[in-house]
């Protein structure tokens, strides 16, 4: 079972060209910040290395950080421009019993990151859900379409903080 410092050392030695950021001081869970375009190479290494062997992806969550500029759009509603969104990957190794949290930061206006479905099949529906509710594009995903909302929902991505509800959907009134 490896500790956070040993895992960080292994990553630093193997990927000298990638700029990681290590946060062992984070209060409840230490995490590693990885640049968005390198996440699939790092994850492949984490899964196949014989000392680390992270064979299971427990959870993939997207969070809207809501830290841009608040402006008013033509209809008078308050929307946000700029800012970031974060994606958190929880990894675990069943053989060695260690866990790791990896974080990726993307832009809020046009979020896009590489998919890890080819590494862990578990990520398939998690990434579809992140696309459906936040609008994050996953490159190289085998089948990226909406999963929870109706397939013809054209009013945006609901879990963003500045989402507005439509009045009617196919003849049914949506608000109370």
């Amino acid at each position, binding site marked *: 079972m490896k500790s956070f410092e040993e895992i960080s050392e292994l990553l630093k030695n193997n990927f000298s060209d990638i700029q990681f950021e290590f946060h062992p001081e984070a209060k409840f869970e230490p995490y590693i910040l990885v640049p968005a375009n390198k996440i699939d190479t790092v994850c492949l290494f984490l899964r196949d290395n014989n000392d680390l062997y992270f064979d299971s992806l427990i959870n993939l969550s997207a969070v809207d950080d809501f830290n841009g500029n608040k402006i008013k759009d033509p209809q008078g509603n308050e929307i946000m421009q700029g800012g970031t969104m974060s994606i958190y990957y929880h990894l675990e190794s069943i053989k060695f019993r260690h866990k790791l949290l990896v974080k990726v930061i993307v832009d809020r206006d046009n979020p896009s990151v590489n998919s890890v479905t080819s590494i862990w099949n578990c990520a398939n529906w998690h990434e579809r859900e992140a696309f459906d509710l936040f609008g994050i594009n996953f490159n190289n995903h085998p089948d990226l379409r909406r999963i*929870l*909302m*109706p397939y013809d929902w054209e009013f945006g991505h*609901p879990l963003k903080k500045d*989402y507005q*509800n439509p009045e009617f*959907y*196919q003849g*049914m*009134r*949506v*608000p*109370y």
Partner: protein
Amino acid sequence: MGLLDKEFSDNNILITTTENLFNWARLSSLWQVGFGLACCAIEMMATSASHYDFDRFGVIPRPSPRQSDVIIVSGTVTLKMALRVKRLYEQMPDPKYVISMGSCSNCGGPYWEHGYHVLKGVDRVIPVDVYVPGCPPRPEALLEGLLKLQEKIRYESITKKNNEIV
């Protein structure tokens, strides 16, 4: 038993009006479509199990809407599901009745304020006869809802038409 008990010992003639006879036949064997959506469906299954038996009122679950009289909408109706509920209702033959069970299908339930994908009450797509409140309603509450529906059918008239679908 009851209505027919003493009639046949004297003579084999039963005198009643057609309305009473048809209404009695309809309310004593209401076959329901097995349509459980969410948590209220578990209470509906518990009502059909042996402790709070549904079968003694003549209610049998049927898998297809084309062979049933009553649809019990139990659980939250979402926008994606609402169009399918309407299609199921239209597939049922007349005379048909609707029981709305639980507070999610009455008025949207606990999701009324911030639910962006929840239909606030199934009566926005189909006409409802009886509303059973509760979250989830106890099996005894569902049985009372069924008895109220039976009372409504008992005083129905076969010459006057019910409200059409809006």
